[in-house]
Every structure is written in C-alpha cells, then in structure tokens.
C-alpha cells in the first residue's frame, strides 16, 4: 500500500438548520483512485468544498502530506496542490486552449502576453498526458470531452498532487469516457491521489481502488472496490432507517381512468424516449439522482422547453402542447423546484400571484380586472390552504418558503388544474410546513386531481407515491408499484449505467 497523502478526520459543518457534515472522514493515498459516493444531499460536495477552502469547517482536522492544513480559499488549496475538476467546466469559450490553461498567470514578454510560450508549455502538458489537442484551438470548438481534458491539463500545470473529479463522465460519450479512464490510470501510475465522485456504479467498479460511501452527512464506511459488489455499495448508500411510514400499497384502483399519457417523449439530451401514464387520483413519483432528466421531462411536457418528438394525451385526447399556455389550457399546472425564479413573482402580492394563471376569468368588462372577485377567491384559497399571510395584499417576498409554495398551489387550484406537477415540493421548506404540504397533496388527489411528484428524497417518494418511476440519464429505467418499491431497488435503477 502506498503512503497516505490526504486525511480528513472528524469533519463537522453546520448550516442554519442543517447538520451538513457530521464527523466525516476520508483518506486518500498516493497512486489511488478513491470513489466518493452517496445520494444527492449526502454531503459529498460539501466535503469537497471544505477540503478546497470554499467552506470553513466547524471542527475536525485535514492532514495533507503529513501536515495539518486549513485552506482559506480555493486559490490556497490550488497552490498547495489540491485541485477540483468540476462537472460544469469553468472555461472561457472564446479564448484558446492555452490561454484558458494559463488564465490568471499568463507568461509575459514585457507588457504583452507571450502566446507562443503559452502554446509551447501547453503542448508539453498534453504530451505528458498523451492527449492530442492543439493549444491554439478556440476552446468552444472542442467537444465537452476534450474541454475536460484541458481542465485536467490545467490541474496538472498547477502541480497538483490531489485531483478531485466531480462527476466527470456525466457529459461524455463512451469513447471519451474510455480516454478519460486512460488518463486517470496514467495519473494513478504517476502517484497522484485521485478522488472520483460519480453515480455510475459500473464506472466505480471499473476505475476505482477504494470507495467511501456517505449518507445524510455521515461516512458510512470505506470498502476496497475489488472486494465488494454493487449491492453492497447501494445498501450502504440507502440503508437508513425511515422514520416516516412509507405507503404500503397504492390507493388508486387498477382500473382508474388514465388522465395523462405520455409516449416516446424526447427533448434534447436529457429526455430520451420517456413514456408513462398517470391515473386519476394518483400520485406518481419520479425518482432519480440529480441530472437524471426528471425536471426536463416535466418542463418539456408542460411546454416550457421545446420538445423534439413524442405524443401527449390528456384524458384520452391527443393534445399538442407547444407552450405553457397550451398546457394550462389542458388543465396542467407546474410547480417548479425553484419557486423564487419560476414560481412566484416576489415583488407582487398574494392576490396578484394567485390569479396569474387565470386572470381572464376575473374581469368585469373590457379587460378591467374585477378586484373584489379576485380578492374574494384568493381569500378563500388562503383560508383553505391555511396560508400564513397577514392579508391577501401582502407581497409574496415577505412570506416563508412553505407559504410561498401554498400561493403557487393556490394559483393552480384557482385555474382549476386537474394535473399538477410538483417538482421537489418540499425543497427549502421546514419540517412542519413539509407535513402540511404532504397533507395538502393527499387531499388534492382525494378530490380527484392527479399529481406527478418529482423528488430526490427517497423517504418522500416512498411515503407519498402510489407508483414510482425511476429515471437515469434522461431515460426511464424502472417503474414500480409502491408495494414493490424499496430504496435498494430504486437506487439500483437510478444508478444503472445505460450504454448509449
């Protein structure tokens, strides 16, 4: 075994209301590829941010090359030799490859930038990595895979000793992944310490030496990859005790009418051939990891983003939804995961927000708004949903997250939507209000509406859904009745690697 280059021990980090990291440990050796795994929100990113000085830890120690370190900024970490290759590449598309690699530390000849020397140095780096890229090429003309290799070259040029890869393969083709792995193996042979974050189980088996699993802000354990199975890892990822009672069986009769049918929906890279049915009075859970294409599916269905192909049927009738307007007309409402950006108009009051989707129903004559009627219906919804607001004239920006969510629900109830798409309905909402949102959703389906619920929280999926659809990389990978669904099965489907 090689010597240890990096040890993180007993790392604690809290944010207001969340204990994000609870005594987390991680150990990386020279010449090792170390996988870091866990569900969304398990704490992987937070841990890496603590390592590279983006966050300051509350307690715990970081030993790097035998010395205790505490970086104040990513710049310091970089100078010491710890570099992250981000999933989203931080490149300036209009500059050349060499200019990107040496950004902020350009070689100069007097006052002018010495491009020739930068190209030469970049070429040396690529030779070292066995990569064939012209340093003079404009960055935006490279494929994502090549751009990532430039990012790796940049990391090497910083004389990195530890390189963290954050979901490097997410945007790559198979051939590019092969090349990435070749480079990673190369780096391993050169005694770099490598942390590899990924959700793709097969890759973990293929490229990594050890795997550390995190769950709910804690380290579950570290395994030697060669000696464990995929099921072992999944079990560690999801093996939590669920305190909330999961649903044991669907409340929806098998012969309930289908209110929404989606066939072979395609939209960009993130929605590929998705088909499903939604029954009357049903909560259909969409599970999967971040970037699985669930939100994209919902947005394409709702007409918020253009779709490439696919048919949508509402109550058996084929519909052509080109814009949110069409979707609202068909009785579909969408509650975005990002309420503040896509859900509410923060600087407007509760009434204005509540009637936004069906304002044309509240006019007296000549498009003049019927103020009294509008306020009356809003007040009715405020009472029904128990929205905590001093009055219907209160600006929405002054309400809490849970109450803002209720305003959005009110908007879709006033416009009489039959199908509601809840995208992460309880994100950013405190525990008490969460419970209320759950009860509200249950009441809505009892009244005969149907709900599609996108959620990254496994307990939420198991507790609320009648049926569960799992997505991975833009495709539907599984469908379960809630009576058959387990955390393991869902996680298995959510991390299934699909060959393109």
């Amino acid at each position, binding site marked *: 075994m090689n010597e240890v280059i990096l040890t993180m021990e007993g790392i604690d980090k809290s944010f207001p209301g969340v204990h994000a990291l609870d005594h987390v440990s991680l150990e990386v050796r020279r010449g090792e590829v170390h996988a870091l795994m866990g569900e969304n929100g398990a704490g992987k990113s937070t841990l890496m941010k603590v390592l590279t000085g983006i966050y300051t830890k509350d307690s715990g120690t970081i030993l790097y090359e035998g010395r205790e370190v505490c970086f104040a900024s990513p710049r310091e970490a970089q100078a010491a030799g710890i570099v992250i290759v981000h999933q989203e590449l931080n490149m300036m598309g209009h500059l050349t490859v060499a200019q990107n690699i040496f950004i902020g530390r350009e070689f100069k000849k007097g006052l002018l930038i010495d491009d020739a020397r930068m190209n030469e140095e970049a070429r040396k780096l690529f030779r070292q990595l066995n990569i064939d890229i012209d340093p003079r090429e404009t960055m935006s003309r490279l494929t994502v895979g090549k751009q990532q290799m430039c990012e790796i070259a940049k990391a090497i040029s910083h004389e990195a000793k530890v390189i963290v890869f954050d979901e490097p393969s997410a945007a790559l083709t198979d051939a590019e992944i092969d090349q990435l792995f070749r480079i990673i193996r190369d780096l391993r042979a050169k005694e770099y310490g490598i942390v590899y974050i990924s959700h793709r189980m097969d890759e973990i088996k293929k490229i990594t030496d050890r795997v550390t699993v995190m769950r709910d802000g804690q380290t579950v354990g570290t395994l030697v990859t060669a000696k464990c199975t995929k099921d072992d890892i999944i079990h560690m990822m999801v093996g939590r005790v669920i305190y909330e009672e999961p649903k044991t069986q669907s409340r929806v009769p098998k012969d309930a009418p289908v209110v929404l049918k989606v066939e072979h929906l395609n939209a960009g890279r993130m929605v590929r051939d998705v088909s499903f049915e939604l029954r009357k009075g049903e909560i259909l859970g969409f599970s999967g990891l971040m970037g699985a294409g669930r939100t994209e599916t919902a947005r394409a269905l709702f007409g918020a983003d253009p779709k490439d192909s696919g048919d949508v049927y509402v109550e058996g009738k084929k519909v052509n939804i080109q814009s949110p307007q069409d979707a609202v007309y068909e009785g579909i409402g*969408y509650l975005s995961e990002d309420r503040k*950006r*896509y859900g509410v108009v923060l600087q*407007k009051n509760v009434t*204005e927000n509540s009637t936004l*989707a069906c304002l044309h129903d509240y006019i007296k004559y000549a498009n*003049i*708004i019927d103020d009294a009627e509008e306020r009356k219906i809003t007040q009715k919804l405020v009472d029904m949903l128990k929205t905590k607001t001093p009055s219907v004239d209160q600006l929405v920006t002054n309400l809490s997250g849970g109450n803002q969510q209720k305003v959005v629900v009110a908007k879709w109830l006033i416009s009489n939507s039959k199908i509601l798409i809840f995208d992460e309905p309880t994100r950013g909402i405190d525990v008490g209000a969460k419970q209320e949102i759950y009860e509200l959703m249950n009441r809505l389906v009892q009244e005969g509406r149907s709900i599609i619920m996108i959620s990254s929280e496994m307990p939420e999926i198991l507790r609320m859904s009648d049926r569960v659809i799992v997505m991975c990389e833009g495709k539907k990978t599984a469908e379960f009745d809630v009576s058959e669904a387990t955390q393991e099965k869902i996680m298995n489907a959510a991390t299934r690697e699909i060959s393109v």
Partner: protein
Amino acid sequence: MKEALRKFKNLKFVRVVGFNRVVLILIIFLMYGLFTLLTPILRNGSSFVNYNRIMSAFNYAYFIGFLGLGVTFVIATGGIDFSIGPVMFCSALISGYCLTTFNLPLWLCILISIAVGSIFGSVGGYFVAYRHLPSFITSLALMQVAKGVGSIFTKTQSVTWPSDNPSISWYRDLVKWNNFPTGFVIFLIVAAICAVILFRTTAGRYMLCLGSNKEAVRLSGVDTRKWEMLAYILCGTLAGIAAIFYVGAYTTVQPGLGDTFNNEAIAACVMGGTSMAGGSASILGTVIGAIIVALMQEGILAMGFTISYQYVLTGLIVLCAVTADITSRKRKN
C-alpha cells in the same frame, strides 16, 4: 423629527398618493419659489411670474408628458426605449408633410402621426419580445431609423404646420383654446386612461408582473411576448400623440433631431417612482415628473441660462433617481 416623518408618511393622503409623489409636489412649489426669487436678481428686475410663462411651461410638459407616459409602460416591463423623441419628430414630419404638401385633411394627418408612432412601437416591440433583442440596442437602432425616415420623407426640409388657416389649424386648439389650456385637460385624461390600463386591466397586470419575473409569468400560461410587445406599441402610439402636441405648441419640426427629449421623458418617468428594474410604475409620478422637467426648463431660460444647463440637469436627475431606486431596493432585500 423621525417621528414626525413617520406620522406624515402614515397620513391617508400621503399613503394614497405615495411619499415620493408628495415630495415631488413639494419640489414643484420649491422650484417655483426659487425661480420667482432668482429671476429678478439675475435678469435685472424681469419677473418669472406671468401667465405666458406658465402656459409655455405647460406646452413643454404636454409632449414630454405623453412621451413619459408611453415609456412608463416599457420601463414597467423591465425595458427601456431611447427612440421616442426621434419617433415623435418622425411622426410630426411625415404627417406634417402630408398636410402641407399632399394637402390631406387634418384629421387624417393626425391619424397618420399616431399610426407612424404605433408602427415604430410595433417594430421595436416585435424585436424585443419575439426576437429577444435587448431593448436598449433595439431602441437605439430605431432612433437612427426614425431620424433617417423623417429626413428622407421631407427631403431633409423642416416642416411648418399651418398656424393661421382656421380650417386646418384647429389642431392648435387641442393645446390652447382661447387662452384655456385644453392640452392640460387632454393630458390628464390620457394619463387617467394610462393609469386604468396599467393598474386595472389584465394587460397592465401582465406587464407589471413580467417586468418583475418574466419566467414565472410565462410558466403561469401567459403569453408574455404579446403583452411585452403591447407595451412598446402603447409607447409608440403615445409618441405619435405627443407629436401633435409638439406641433400644436411650436408648429415647426426639423429633421434629424428629437433625441434630447428621450432623456427628459425618461427622467420624468424615473423621478416619478417608476423603477428601472421593472415591475413597479407610477402614472401620477410621470405626470408630476413631466411638469417638473418643463418647469425646470422654463426656469433655466427665464434666469438667462442656455438650454445646455437643462441637459446637464436632466442627466443628473436620471442618475440621482435611479441611484435612489436601486439603493432603496437593496435596503429592502
């Protein structure tokens, strides 16, 4: 002092009109007093207070006011329009040329003026709303087009609307009729209509909401493009109306000019409390703002300064008003 201010802010009148507007009204009186005091000192005993001066200030306030009302809609949607001044001149040139050279009836020429404004508004609105161009660039480009089109149409001649032929000079009565300021009455009526459109109709609601968060409004199933375009059309139409009031007061229009009025109209708008960030607007504020701009111009000339001082002051007013708006927004967050 603080307590008194708080009490004052809570008065019913102040709450309805808005604190900002109350301050502006006080500023009008202050300016008036200042000009009355300073003019005799600076101009050797000539006096500021006379009926002609007030009428002259009103003449200026009308067309700046109509431009300001129009641009209020655009700013409410989060955009800006720098073409309104030249569009107004273009409307006045084309319709005036039709009146004097083609001898078209006056009522038709007035309609032509309004139509020219609407066309410019529609073109600008189309590019901003449907092609997603920044309103800043779109309106700068249209400003050049408007200047050019007006010049080409009149063969780079200035146009003087007839002022002494009773059968085709009745447009002047729209501005002043037997020393009665009819223009002021019409201006207030149009402003009231604008206020109804902006605050009481679905169109106005959508414009204000989309100025605040366009994506949320779109995802509520509203055709945001249509309503955004409508704001620019209203703006252009009001520039066409402003043209009639400009010639009603001054009769002569020259090609290739008009851009100085952009800033004055925008100044009237932003000092009245319409936020450059979009989403909140005040029609009353724009009306008062236009009067302040006009009074300021009149005062500067009366005291014997050149019009260049007016440019400096309007520039500074825009800077101050926008700074105040942004600062108060930051404090709220």
